[in-house]
């Protein structure tokens, strides 16, 4: 006990004098999910006094791998540097053959996440997931799926669905758009058979009755959403498009603990919770060993499915 008290005093003493002065890298252009996450972190950290002069810097490109590479090489041991990233990065590192991976930074915590939704236009003859799977089994090429960029979460979801349904994933007819939003227009205009993207992208249309929600990729039913999970529909697929924050490589244990504590303080603040609910983001905060294990699992399964689709050799 005495040791514990001493240790925490020591840690406290280390943390006290230096108020963090975080620079948050958003490895994407202004406007996207990572940029918004970084800017929301900035606002909350400033207002909560965690880091009064937190800054955001955009380093866009190649699914975040350019920002990641720059971050890892320039900030070794710098406890004030943070980078935002997410599940899309996991896929991009693999498809782009990136020399830098998430092993080269210090992942701190998963902050928020969205589940995937599978939808069809309201006028579609397909009524449920079973109908869609049957059509897919009958002729994989005839079922066109609109979603975000190739190799991204949406594309991976379609690959996983095909695999779970026993259909050759290389045969899927996936039409990539620059984002879920642009894909939305194609789905609403009846240009494609089905659409896959984050639930938030489709939410308003589902409520208005112009899209029919067939299933969601969450482990359990989502409150207030009237659709089965993919598992309930008989497809063993679970996928979360999460966003995380990572720190620089080469941090000491004390430095890592300090950053983790700061991030936790931010996440637990009322301010952050309000921002999440305003933006419709789910709180999927996960840190420490649990997050490391989850990350490991995601990397392995993503690599497998990308190989199945044929995007990674």
């Amino acid at each position, binding site marked *: 006990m005495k040791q514990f008290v001493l240790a925490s005093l020591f840690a406290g003493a280390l943390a006290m004098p230096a108020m963090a002065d975080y620079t948050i890298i958003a490895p994407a252009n202004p*406007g996207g999910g990572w940029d918004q996450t970084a800017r929301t972190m900035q606002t909350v950290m400033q207002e909560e006094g965690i880091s009064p002069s937190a800054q955001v810097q955009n380093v866009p490109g190649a699914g975040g791998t350019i920002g990641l590479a*720059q971050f890892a090489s320039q900030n070794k041991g710098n406890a004030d540097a943070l980078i935002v990233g997410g599940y899309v990065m996991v896929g991009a590192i693999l*498809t782009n053959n990136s020399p830098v991976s998430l092993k080269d930074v210090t992942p701190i915590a998963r902050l928020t996440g969205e589940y995937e939704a599978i939808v069809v236009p309201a006028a579609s003859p397909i009524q449920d997931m079973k109908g869609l799977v049957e059509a897919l089994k009958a002729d994989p090429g005839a079922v066109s799926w609109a979603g975000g960029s190739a190799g991204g979460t949406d594309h991976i979801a379609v690959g996983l669905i095909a695999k779970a349904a026993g259909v050759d994933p290389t045969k899927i007819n996936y039409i*990539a758009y620059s984002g879920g939003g642009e894909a*939305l227009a194609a789905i609403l205009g009846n240009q494609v058979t089905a659409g896959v993207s984050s639930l938030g992208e489709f*939410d*308003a249309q589902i*409520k208005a009755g112009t899209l029919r929600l067939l299933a969601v990729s969450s482990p359990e039913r989502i409150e207030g959403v009237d659709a089965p999970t993919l598992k309930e529909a008989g497809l063993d697929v679970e996928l979360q498009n999460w966003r995380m924050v990572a720190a620089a490589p080469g941090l000491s244990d004390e430095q890592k603990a300090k950053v983790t504590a700061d991030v936790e303080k931010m996440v637990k603040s009322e301010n952050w919770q309000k921002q999440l609910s*305003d933006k419709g983001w789910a709180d999927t905060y996960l840190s420490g060993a649990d997050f490391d294990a989850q990350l490991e699992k995601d990397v392995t399964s993503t690599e497998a499915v990308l190989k199945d689709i044929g995007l990674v050799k």
Partner: protein
Amino acid sequence: MGAFDFLLQGLATAAEPMMLLYALIGVTLGTAVGVLPGIGPALTVALLLPVTYRLDAAGSLIMFAGIYYGGMYGGSTTSILLNTPGESASIITALEGNKMARKGRGGPALATAAIGSFIAGLIATLLLAFLAPSIVKVALVFGPREYFALMVLAFVTVSAAFGDSALRGLTSLFLGLALACVGIDQLTGQARLSFGVPELLDGIEVTTMAVAMFAVGEALFIAGQRNVQADEVTAVKGSIWMSRADWARSWKPWLRGTFLGFPIGAMPAGGAEIGTFLSYATEKKLTKHPEEFGEGAIEGVAGPEAANNASAAGTLVPLLTLGLPTSATAAIMLAGFQQFGLQPGPLLFATNPTLVWGLIASLLIANAMLLVLNLPMIGLWVKLLTVPKPWLYAGILLFATLGTIGANPSSFELGMLLAFGVLGYVMRLFGYPIAPIVVGLILGPMAEQQLRRALSISQGDWTTLVQSPIAAVLLGIAALALIVPLILRARGKGQVLSQLAGDED
């Protein structure tokens, strides 16, 4: 008519003195940041959005609208004065605008841009207010094959509009198309022509390329001319205001630009650039002064600037009615709306009328504020041009570099800026037009993706391209635009045509 009452109510709120002050602050901030070369409206809004967080909903909406319009106008100002477009939609403005500025007509160029933006913004915002739900239904009919047909039309009209030597124009265009292939192929996720360089994976940044071609290339070209003629520096010739003739030549392009820009901006994959390209091509066809095109024709500023602003209001149509951000700026606006609990989507006009109409009223007020603030500033801006040439071009190089680094902090990006600057210099030296290469870089990927999407959906059946009536009509018009001049040329009227085409650069 509930809509009209809501609008009046919104206008009444937005016209309160405190609100006008917020609008003024927003416009000033937006212009100040937007005027930095290489920084477009998207980055301006992203940088300044947190400023609006401190205010109540009405106050922050109006300041936000001010920042948005200010950022857009600031971008045009630098395009005209310094030839450094901050975003792809103001590239066309730079073409004629900068020529005008260098002939001492910077004042009228800035004025026609400001007034044209105001008029286009006004008309387009009103169209947005009253027609948004019906426009979006039409826009959704546009699928990949219709978009592809639209791109083909843009290609044909645009490449015909540039330069008097078809061979040189096409060479430049195809250079642009080749450069457009660099990067990750969006449909398969595979890297093309990137040679293992990670910075090339996302392709060549259009603004870097444009700034390099226009600003750096020009600076090198000026430096390369041994005999610097001092008499060329005529910063202000005649009035800095628009003459009667300027007005007469501007008002039609303003209106045409508005009606080209708004519907294309309202399409979920339309974008602002195509409207400006088509407007430029149209004005060049219709003008009574074809010899001035490429030498600083006021129509070439008035039309595209109006189209640019109208399409910006157009992008709000899918944003508000579908929750669909179709440009980077719109994506940031979406983030801005969410802080007021406003969830754009099909139900927005029904569930949240006060905020929507408040926003529309704010856009109208901010638009007017922009005009009030910027018209008197024109005299100040054109003073920039009286800076001696070596200083001015040194400054342009400095700001072009700063803008590139600011938008994309990477030494590779800087290397590309210099490399393309040298390419721009070489192309100028041998008389190749600059604009088609940039146009190719912008339109190439769009056309390719839409074509491949269309073919993927039809599972490889090429007849799908003409099976939709809209696509067939658009392709038909494009074919006519291509064939008719060929026939005219074959019948010995080529002389007239090449005179009409004029010299672009």
